[in-house]
């Protein structure tokens, strides 16, 4: 009996309901529209989009119409109902149409601008270019509505608009390509956009008709969805104004996919999943507001077995891989882990002795202990000072040799003493004193305008690239010119003074707010997304910025450095480019990035503690060997990445393996490449292997692209050859020793690859000694082989 009731209840529910959103529709004004979304019953816990497979019918076709795509349009004032039917059931949505008899006048910047944006008129390649297009210039993406209004209404000798016969306006006949238009047809005659432009002209092309209120944000439904290959999903976009009023802008918004080959999106907001498993973020833009819908296309039919979890990183990484149906690789072997950990933490190969010892160690916690040992090594500070010298632009030509030395030394001490990163950032942001003194003041010599500082500090510490907003509203972010000049306002008190010593000193004076470049209006200094800063009794404005930046609730700071470190250890950022964090460029694993940021705050920005957590995760210790299921995965960390060695690290590695030191011009013998502060020291090796010139705060300056010149140099250059045959080098020592060829090959392999050769490899390397070959030549050839192997040239 109980069972029968349950079956009956299910039947009734199935018969009665298909889910439709929204539950009720109000359409206001002739150009309004409402997208309906219809959903299937859940199958395997997944609800599918049925918007284009159900039937729609308007009860009173005089009041509203509805098309097969679920778009409701107003026809006349009144009330009616849309009925929705499918094999699964039925639903009804009440519709009310208002504002048709006496529509509210059109507001230029809220209604005309988005129409032009959607049609692409103000895109950077068309009329939005700095010089406009064929004499007609619009601000890019409608960032300056007053100028656009002037351009349409007043310029072009008034030909662009013709209120007496709106449809004869140049704006409309060009946009519809009725008259030849270089940009082709952008708007269909009769479309909503067309009718809106025509009504706006007919109403007298007013700037502010008072008929709409500014919107506070947009919402997209669904915000995430799992699709199978080939499936589609209609989006619904709703604009919400400050008073909470909602209207549908699905047909007016702009759509863009960050991975069109995985899931593309049409102008109507219809997502189309392709055949390839993966993830895509669909970016929705409307009037400077952005929203994102994340789409996942899982690999079908994968039996996912969750590997053990060492910490939260593994849990969140497995969650993601499970959702996508990608298997993680096995744990890397000890030798691979040893080499990887050394190269990542200290930019230095393990020595032969270290490798022997680690491989022989049978204790269970040897990996964790190795991580601790590496973080305590002196080379940790060398290596990380070098990496941050790139970011802080320690360029000898810009800051002079004493400035470069001072900054490098300061950086070295920060990492040696494990300065917490919030304190580190504070010291950089508020640096003062002599450029050659003990501190990062040289940063203010390289970056010598409030503008440049705002841009660079924002990219470096917040992972926010606001440079677009210098000239116009950031096309895919919420930052506008106000935000840009408000941030630059923190640096207006920075003063540079030449000292009698020939050096420069950085001082801080009371700063002032900057004028907006367009209208000269003073923009109060404030941090990104923050309230205007309070400077009373603050001698140095920058301290207020540093406080905001390092506060526990800062939304950018912890995530930005977490992502930067992650990218270093895992070969790719959770967000790429690693310093471009924004809603429209989401992380490949958002929960993981936010957990990392939380963790960093928990450990009080202790970078060593944070690094320990990264490296003790099973994820970090996975093998780089991939299988069919995960070979193509490049963003979910299912296997370790092959990372090119930075130029300096590679040179040090060759030096170490050959035991033949590099003599750097002007440096005592024995200095290592990662210790060289002079980025301008001429070096063919550094040039072809992509040492950055420190021209920007972007890590991307360091190129890791291979080239034929690199191959030529490694296999056939006098320089490398001289290292292999150095009289005091490893090759000569081994060749002249009493060791057997097999023992020699062991040592060479341990030195280059941190492991013993397997039987086949041993045979190959021993063949160098065949037929009474000269022992020195044989050892040299064997080492040449190892140094030129992929396994040596990459950190994997």
């Amino acid at each position: 009996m109980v069972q029968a009731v349950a079956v009956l209840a299910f039947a009734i529910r199935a018969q009665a309901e298909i889910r439709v959103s929204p539950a009720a529709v109000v359409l206001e004004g002739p150009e309004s529209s409402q997208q309906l979304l219809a959903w299937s019953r859940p199958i395997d816990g997944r609800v599918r989009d049925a918007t284009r497979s159900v039937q729609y019918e308007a009860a009173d076709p005089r009041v509203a119409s509805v098309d097969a795509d679920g778009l409701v349009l107003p026809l006349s004032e009144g009330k009616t109902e849309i009925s929705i039917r499918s094999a699964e059931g039925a639903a009804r949505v009440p519709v009310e149409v208002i504002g048709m008899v006496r529509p509210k006048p059109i507001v230029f910047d809220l209604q005309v601008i988005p129409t032009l944006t959607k049609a692409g008129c103000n895109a950077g390649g068309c009329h939005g270019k700095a010089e406009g297009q064929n004499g007609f210039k619009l601000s890019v993406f409608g960032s300056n509505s007053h100028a656009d209004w002037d351009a349409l209404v007043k310029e072009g000798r008034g030909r662009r608009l013709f209120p007496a016969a709106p449809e004869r306006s140049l704006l409309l006949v060009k946009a519809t390509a009725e008259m030849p238009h270089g940009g082709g047809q952008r708007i269909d005659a009769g479309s909503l956009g067309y009718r809106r432009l025509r009504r706006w002209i007919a109403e007298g092309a007013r700037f502010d008709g008072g008929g709409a209120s500014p919107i506070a944000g947009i919402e997209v439904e669904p915000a995430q969805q799992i699709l199978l290959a080939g499936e589609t999903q209609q989006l619904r976009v709703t604009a919400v104004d400050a008073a909470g009023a909602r209207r549908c802008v699905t047909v007016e918004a702009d759509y863009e996919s960050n991975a069109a080959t995985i899931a593309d999106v049409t102008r109507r907001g219809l997502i189309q999943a392709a055949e390839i498993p993966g993830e895509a973020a669909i970016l929705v833009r409307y009037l400077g507001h952005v929203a994102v819908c994340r789409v996942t296309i899982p690999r079908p039919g994968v039996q996912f077995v969750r590997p053990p979890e060492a910490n939260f990183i593994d849990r969140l990484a497995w969650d993601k891989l499970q959702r996508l149906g990608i298997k993680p690789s096995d744990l890397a072997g000890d030798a691979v882990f040893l080499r990887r950990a050394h190269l990542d933490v200290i930019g230095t190969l393990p020595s032969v002795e270290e490798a022997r010892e680690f491989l022989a160690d049978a204790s269970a916690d040897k990996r964790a202990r190795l991580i601790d040992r590496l973080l305590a090594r002196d080379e940790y500070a060398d290596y990380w000072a070098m990496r941050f010298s790139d970011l802080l632009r320690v360029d000898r030509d810009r800051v002079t040799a004493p400035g470069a030395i001072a900054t490098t030394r300061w950086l070295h001490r920060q990492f040696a003493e494990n300065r917490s990163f919030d304190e580190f950032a504070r010291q950089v942001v508020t640096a003062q004193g002599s450029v050659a003194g003990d501190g990062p003041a040289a940063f203010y010599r390289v970056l010598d305008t409030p503008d440049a500082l705002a841009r660079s500090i924002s990219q470096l510490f917040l992972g926010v690239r606001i440079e677009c907003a210098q000239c116009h509203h950031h096309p895919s972010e919420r930052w506008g010119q106000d935000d840009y000049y408000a941030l630059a306002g923190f640096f207006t008190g920075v003063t540079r003074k030449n000292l009698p010593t020939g050096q420069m000193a950085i001082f801080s004076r009371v700063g002032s707010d900057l004028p907006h470049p367009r209208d000269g209006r003073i923009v109060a200094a404030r941090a990104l997304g923050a309230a205007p800063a309070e400077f009373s009794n603050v001698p140095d404005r920058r301290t207020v910025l540093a406080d905001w930046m390092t506060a526990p609730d800062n939304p950018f700071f912890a995530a930005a450095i977490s992502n930067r470190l992650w990218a270093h250890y895992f070969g790719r950022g959770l967000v790429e480019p690693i310093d471009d964090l924004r809603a429209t460029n989401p992380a490949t694993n958002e929960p993981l990035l936010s957990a990392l940021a939380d963790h960093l705050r928990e450990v009080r920005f202790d970078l060593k503690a944070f690094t320990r957590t990264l490296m003790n995760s099973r994820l970090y210790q996975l093998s780089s060997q991939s299988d069919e299921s995960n070979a193509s995965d490049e963003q979910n960390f299912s296997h370790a990445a092959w990372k090119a060695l930075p130029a300096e690290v590679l040179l040090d590695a060759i030096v170490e393996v050959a035991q033949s030191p590099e003599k750097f011009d002007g440096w005592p013998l024995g200095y290592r490449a990662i210790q060289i502060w002079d980025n301008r020291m001429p070096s063919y090796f550094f040039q072809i292997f992509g040492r950055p010139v420190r021209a920007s705060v972007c890590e991307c300056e360091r190129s890791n692209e291979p080239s034929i010149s690199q191959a030529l140099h490694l296999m056939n250059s006098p320089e490398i050859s001289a290292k292999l045959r150095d009289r005091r080098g490893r090759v000569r020592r081994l060749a002249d020793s009493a060791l057997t060829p097999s023992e020699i090959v062991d040592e060479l392999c341990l030195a280059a690859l941190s492991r013993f050769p397997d039987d086949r490899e041993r045979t190959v390397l021993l063949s160098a000694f065949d037929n009474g070959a000269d022992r020195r030549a044989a050892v040299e050839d064997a080492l040449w082989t190892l140094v030129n192997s992929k396994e040596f040239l990459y950190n994997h």
Partner: protein
Amino acid sequence: MRHEMHRSDQPCRERITRRRMLHVGGSGLLAGLSLPRLMELEALASTGEQAKAQACIFLFLEGGPSTIDMWDMKPEAPIEIRGPFRPIASSVPGTFVGEHCPLSARIAHKFTILRSHSHTDNGHSTGYHYLMTGYKPDFADGETRVPNNVLYPSIGSIVSRELGRRTSVPPYINLPHPMRGGGPGFYGSRFAPFVIESDPVQPDFEVKDLRLVEGVSRERLDRRRRMLDAFEQRDTGRPASGRAEAMATYYEKAHTLITSPEARKAFDIQAESESTRARYGHTSLGQCALLARRLVQGGCRFVGIDHSGWDSHFTIFPSLEKDMLPHADRAFSALVEDLDERGMLDSTLVVMMGEMGRTPRVNAAAGRDHWSMAQSVIFAGGGVKPGQVLGATDKQAAYPVTDPVSIQDILRTLFQQLGIDTTKTYLTPLGRPVPIVNGGRIIPGLV
């Protein structure tokens, strides 16, 4: 995911070739046998269409040449447009060129001026990319680092992929430094240019690391390489990452370069007589053009010469008169005549252009600014009908008054002359189809 790249709707030839090539790529390119196999496959990939040109020398005047002062003079225009230079008669009756291109004027019957090239990208790095690929870039002007998979392959990389190597000389070479828009894009580093990072005008010019190291004979290098091949076979069947795999392909190319006498001969500009070197001019562009001729003789398919310094926003005329024009005039005319005398002009297409032209109106700083709406492009050899002027611009050389010729038109024509099947399409690593050339038509009257 590799197998998913091959969709069943791809043409059969393309599908097989790609799979075979990938197979080769995955199983150790260092194996001695793989090179002939690779060449065979690459030969399969090309179409056997009748080629008029065997090679192309692309003189890229980076920054945007002021072609209104060179090939499209407007003597009737006001002084602020026509500038101070006068037109002079050329060897073709009725064709006039700028007075600072006298050497080219004498051989005007050997090349053709296209005056109606026009596009809408006024940025340097974006315009460069657009011009070299035929696709609008997905990045902002001035941005230097862009993920490979949103980048399109450049002309040289396409030529390299479609025609492959003729000899041990790399099929695609850049000199005297990399061309910013000349990368392989999503084709991958296998089709990247070999960059001669050295300027042949320097007295000590040498392609570094090409000569065998002292004490290492050819036999010993071969032996080492065999050991390396054998050592690396440990990885057979295991796909390495893209970058590591790319390194392997470079090793193969590097080895071929070192060991082949013809390659070293091609790079040896010092083998040219002083009179020949002087004829091209002792300038970067001149010696690059001369080296380009040697490289083509040696088997290179596409030489891209990046000659910068044309972006004259300030006091343009002294710079044009003293440096830019005499250098370009001498280099270009010497190259065309030299190729002609050697019987190579018919099989070598020479193209000279930049990413844009310059504004007709001289600006307040006595310079000319970016102007992509009109640029004259020079074509010679490779089946081009010489001695013509094609297209025309308005009275100010601001806009074409004849059918504008797009960059896609230029690329399609160039590929056709080289015998490349322009209907081919390749898939990006994520599976998006990208045709070799994005539309365009054969430039009417040019060939």
